[in-house]
């Protein structure tokens, strides 16, 4: 007994799940930790927008029309990044726009991941006709160019927050679906799946408890990568006027607002553009780190 106890502390220090081990690897990567902190900061900005915004983002004041940022001639304290063509504070609109951009990004990726993972599990585990139908639908959807189809959908459904989410989701689920299907095909041949079957586990139990937890890493990585793409896609739709409708601001519509004054009032478009750049870059670097931590080939 004593010899057993002596051997235990070493074993206990490793008592963590695979996901916990991955998380530790991730935290060891400074770049991606910094990037995820930036993402977190954007999320906090989105949540606390009403407290952070120095001005009312919807209040127009034609006297402040295209007023430059605070540090330039003609600038004014409290209107730090200048004003747009209707005299609305750019910074406040950006802070509120963060809400829209992140909310759409999270909603689309969440919805697409849940749908895609479910269908991918069903296709990969059940095989047969279910697999054929789901795989074909995926193939067909992949045949459509993403944004053009989304634009078409938006034109059909009309603008609006809910409709943007739907228009971006229409084929966003295909990617997680294919990843999950492929991973499931490999996982279903694992001995522990066979063992679970031999011990009388139901199909539902096997998909949910035996396969899903073991293929979660790539799903998470794909989801974070796609988040960046969705934010850009939403910005593109809003830029084209198909996204959120005025006076609601998203980063894309803010960039569009300043497009006509790019030479005279560069700040109206530039700062929202930089915000998009910063968030997308941060998400990409963070997800890069996630991928490295989750990739079994880059073992610790």
């Amino acid at each position, binding site marked *: *007994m004593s010899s*057993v*106890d002596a051997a*235990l502390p070493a*074993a206990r220090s*490793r*008592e*963590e*799940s*695979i*996901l916990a081990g991955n998380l530790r690897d991730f935290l060891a990567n400074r770049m991606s930790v910094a990037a995820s902190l930036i993402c977190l900061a954007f999320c906090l900005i989105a949540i606390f927008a009403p407290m952070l915004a120095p001005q009312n983002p919807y209040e127009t004041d034609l006297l402040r029309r295209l007023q430059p940022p605070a540090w330039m001639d003609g600038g004014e304290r409290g209107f730090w990044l200048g004003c747009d063509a209707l005299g609305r504070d750019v910074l406040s609109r950006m802070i509120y726009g963060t809400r829209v951009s992140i909310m759409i990004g999270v909603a689309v990726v969440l919805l697409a991941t849940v749908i895609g993972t479910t269908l991918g599990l069903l296709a990969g585990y059940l095989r047969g006709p279910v697999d054929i139908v789901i795989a074909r639908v995926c193939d067909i959807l992949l045949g459509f160019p993403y944004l053009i189809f989304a634009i078409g959908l938006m034109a059909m459904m009309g603008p609006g927050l809910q409709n943007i989410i739907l228009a971006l989701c229409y084929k966003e689920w295909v990617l997680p679906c294919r990843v999950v299907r492929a991973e499931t095909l490999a996982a279903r041949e*694992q*001995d*522990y799946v*066979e*063992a*679970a*079957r*031999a*011990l*009388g*586990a*139901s199909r539902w*139990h096997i998909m949910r*408890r*035996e396969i899903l*937890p*073991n293929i979660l890493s790539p799903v998470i990585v794909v989801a974070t990568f796609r988040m960046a793409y969705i934010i850009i896609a939403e910005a593109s739709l809003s830029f084209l006027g198909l996204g959120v409708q005025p006076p609601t601001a998203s980063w894309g519509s803010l960039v569009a607002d300043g497009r006509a004054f790019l030479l005279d009032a560069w700040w109206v478009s530039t700062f929202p553009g930089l915000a998009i750049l910063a968030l997308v870059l941060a998400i990409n670097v963070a997800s890069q780190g996630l991928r490295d931590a989750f990739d079994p080939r880059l073992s610790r």
Partner: protein
Amino acid sequence: MSELLGIRGLRTTFPTRHGLVRAVDGVDLDVRPGECLGVVGESGSGKSVTFLSVLGLVRPPGRVEAEAITFLGRNLLSLAPTEIRAIRGRDIAVTMQDALTALNPAFTVETQIVETIEAHEPGIAKGEARARAIEMLRLVGIPDAERRLAAYPHQFSGGMRQRVMVAIALACRPKLLIADEPTTALDVTIQSQVLDLIDDMRSELGMSVVLITHDLGIVAERCDRVAVMYAGQVVETGPTAEVVASPIHPYTQGLLRSMPSLAHLDAPLVPIDGTVPDPTRLSDGCRFLPRCPHAVEACARPIALHAVSPDRAARCVLVEVAQ
């Protein structure tokens, strides 16, 4: 003869690009209550597939046909998939060949044992299931069971994982344990520990055990009866002691001669010449014919399993002639 599990005329086939593979071809087997049946044969002789077929675990496009598979008087062939599923794990439990990969890496041992118990006894209290899990781990000889419940499979050594798997398999107190090569990945010393463990469990829980192995030595040591399989057929069955002492089928004789013996260290090992036949091109006659030292012309026609004594049978033309 009241058997726990009776298999009659089991045929399992897999269509492949090279033709139909007859993995199991007309197997008759009985497992009696409380006994340990050894199923011996080379890789690909159909040992594992036989029992996967019994449990309905053969995946399409594999096909299972049988005259009858009875378990406790119920015909398993006529059961709905959900009914068979209820039998798997609760009445007939299987431990898989490779203990190192047969545990789900994503969950602690506790979760895995408790979930198996819950699957077969819905409505069991969490605390009770947990207590049973601790009891099972203790039973299979894992020290400090309560604490080790919270460990993940990768934190156990191979032998310990094999024990955990036995613990999971026995958690619902099955009437029949099918131990598929329970010792393949283990050291010799750990091997005997695991086999002792299964033996103990058998007498303690009063269950039957089917020990699938390629190691005739293990069977000789542990099993009441033995069934020798070759190319998808049972070629010889009988009480282990009798089969080992006086093997009838030339394949069994060959197997015994090719096994090293501590008693006769200087006796040369005699391998069986030739290789296992291509499973897509099996002849109707004796499948051991090309490798058999006693082959005669009559071997080319279909050979049935002949009873030699009430308890012994062999699939060989020599038996036929002798009768």
